[in-house]
């Protein structure tokens, strides 16, 4: 297996929407801690995970924190690469203009490379 084009960046895949479960929050925590430990961290929003980026989110009615403030902190942790699966956006009737942060769009043919090239991969 040729690893010449592998990166040592950590890939955190976020596949769950905000509020309905803690997967998104706990996945983001892994990304932030990885970055705090000096690792290069790339985030991939896939499936319902793309809902994490939608504009206009608020905290829950009981004060549940939500994840949108955490997204604004990513740059402070040097997490600059926010990858978004184009197909997941399209399936949900979303476009880049609906998102609260600038992102890099990923096409279907790029997706397998992302998984193959990062070590390690955390899939939340």
């Amino acid at each position: 297996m040729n690893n010449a084009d592998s990166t040592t960046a950590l890939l955190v895949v976020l596949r769950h929407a905000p509020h309905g479960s803690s997967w998104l929050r706990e996945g983001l925590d892994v990304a932030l801690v990885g970055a705090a430990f000096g690792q290069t961290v790339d985030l991939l929003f896939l499936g319902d995970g793309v809902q994490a980026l939608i504009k206009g989110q608020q905290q829950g009615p009981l004060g549940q924190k939500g994840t949108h403030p955490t997204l604004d902190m990513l740059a402070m942790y040097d997490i600059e690469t926010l990858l978004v699966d184009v197909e997941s956006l399209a399936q949900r009737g979303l476009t880049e203009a609906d998102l609260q942060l600038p992102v890099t769009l990923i096409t279907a043919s790029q997706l397998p490379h992302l998984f193959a090239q990062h070590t390690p991969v955390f899939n939340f």
Partner: protein
Amino acid sequence: MQLHLLNRSVASSHVYRDALRAMSDDDYLLLIEDGVYGAVAPLVEHFSSIAGRLFALREDLESRGLEGRCAESVIVVDTEGFVQLTEETERTVSWF
């Protein structure tokens, strides 16, 4: 080369679609837990694009009464075989 694990039935969850889209041409997919419901016809047709690279965990088939109903195209492994697959591949990615 990676081993992907899927523990959801294709009849109830679409996560298998994202798993298939994330797989490289030489990656393996192992069905475990409720994932093994996808090893039976006609549901197994959802995995036609990865013929020869689709595995199912024997213990999870047996406990669900599916061992005799598993499609012939699926390679059945026991947990020792599962460990072997993790030896042969560089990394494991879990889909749930």
